[in-house]
């Protein structure tokens, strides 16, 4: 791969992780808002450890839940992931074991939850859960379809996030500093016009100094 191409790839990768994570958080937030729910969470399957990880949280518990992990095939999220089937349950507090497990994981026990698998092609990437939608009316199949639409969006965002993470890891492991250079290029590219020009001049001067040292 040429230096220019490597730099171009690196420039495309650096910073995209944050963007895709924002997209994921946005999907969680919109899901929560559309259903008028108390909270929404997106779990990513970590295939290496066989665990589900809280990747985006909207509403209650957002600060404490991010990054928390639990086994991939137990509980309701685990069932949904393994079976690829969406599930809506209400009155879950009647199940003492569920309440205990859930409280240990999240700090609070929802009265109801909707859970849907995040599928991208052949792969099951994770689970979207929407907690405590108002129980003003019977759940309808139209809402189930809506949940499926959000799941599609979340699956695409998760796929992008995973790709960005893998690409960044490859760049970091290359040991050639391409990630540092690309990050610098991204930073300069994001500057306001009046600051970008001096920034570029500074980088050009730095390059000149480095080249001169290399030659001498």
């Amino acid at each position, binding site marked *: 791969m040429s230096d220019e191409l490597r730099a171009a790839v690196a420039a495309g990768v650096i910073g995209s992780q944050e963007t895709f994570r924002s997209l994921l958080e946005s999907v969680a937030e919109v899901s929560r808002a559309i259903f008028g729910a108390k909270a929404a969470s997106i779990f990513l399957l970590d295939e290496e450890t066989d665990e589900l990880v809280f990747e985006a949280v909207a509403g209650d518990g957002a600060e404490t839940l991010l990054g928390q992990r639990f086994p991939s095939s137990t509980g309701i999220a685990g069932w949904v992931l*393994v079976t690829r089937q969406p599930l809506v349950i209400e009155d879950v507090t009647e*199940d003492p074991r569920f309440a205990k497990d859930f409280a240990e994981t999240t700090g609070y026990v929802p009265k109801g939850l909707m859970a849907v698998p995040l599928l991208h092609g052949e792969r099951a990437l994770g689970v979207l859960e929407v907690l405590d939608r108002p129980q003003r009316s019977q759940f309808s199949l139209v809402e189930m379809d809506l949940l499926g639409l959000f799941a599609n969006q979340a699956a695409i965002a998760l796929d992008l996030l995973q790709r960005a993470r893998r690409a960044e890891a490859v760049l970091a492991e290359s040991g050639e500093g391409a990630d540092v250079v690309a990050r610098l290029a991204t930073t300069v590219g994001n500057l306001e016009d009046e600051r970008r020009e001096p920034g570029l001049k500074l980088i050009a001067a730095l390059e000149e100094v480095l080249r001169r040292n290399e030659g001498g």
Partner: protein
Amino acid sequence: MAQPEQKPEQRPDIRPAWSLPAGEGDNIALPVEWPGEVTRDWAWGESTGKGVRVCILDSGVDAGHPLVGEVQRSVAVSIGADEEVVVEDDSEGDLCGHGTACAGIVRSLAPDCELISVRVLGAGFTGSGGVLLAGLRWAVEQGFDVVNMSLSTTKRQFAGLLHELTDKAYFRRTVLVASAHNMPVESYPWRFSSVISVGSHEEPDPMTFFYNPDPPVEFFARGVDVEVAWTGGARIRCTGNSFATPHMTGLCALVLGKHPELTPFQLKSVLYLTSSNVEAAGE
């Protein structure tokens, strides 16, 4: 205790025949007692599902829940260290609640059927496709009459094997009832024509079911806001195709309790003829 995979039951009535010599037609004459009109009363009137063995391939079942009652046998399926299939007696109960919910729905329709729980969940997501396949294979080899599956896989590597297995079940008279997807997703085995695939309708009546003239989903059963059994002796309300599926399983158990001789395609025809939309059209 771990058990080796059991050999298939040899049922003399389903030994394959590969051709029919001249003049042998009379030797395979089959008594047929189809009525002029297949009604619900003919199909399952007075039946309680007695004598029908129903397998719940799921997260396990909490036996003794008031809505479930006795579970005749519970096993768990896993893949061992040397990639071998391990089927062992299971005392874990239900790891999620879903299997108990399905068992309760089946029993609510067919109270005297036998229930066998085959747990294929709980051993991690990685390898779950292999466990699902192994569990289904075991269930087919046991010769259960009906297998309730709220499970599917999106992995194409399993599609061919699952297809072979569902066809084997079809010819061995094991009826597979599988949850369809409510999203345009390529997953298996519900898409195969040898199984009975089920989606949801919103009616509250458990005996209301519809034949879908636009497959691959073949039937719609009650799947919205269903009160079900759950772990810890609880009862909760649930929505999803995975709750519609055991309604069709229960109906299959009722029909087979009264007409045990029916093959899967004959049973599917009975379900078609007694569907709420097909019956209504004939009235």
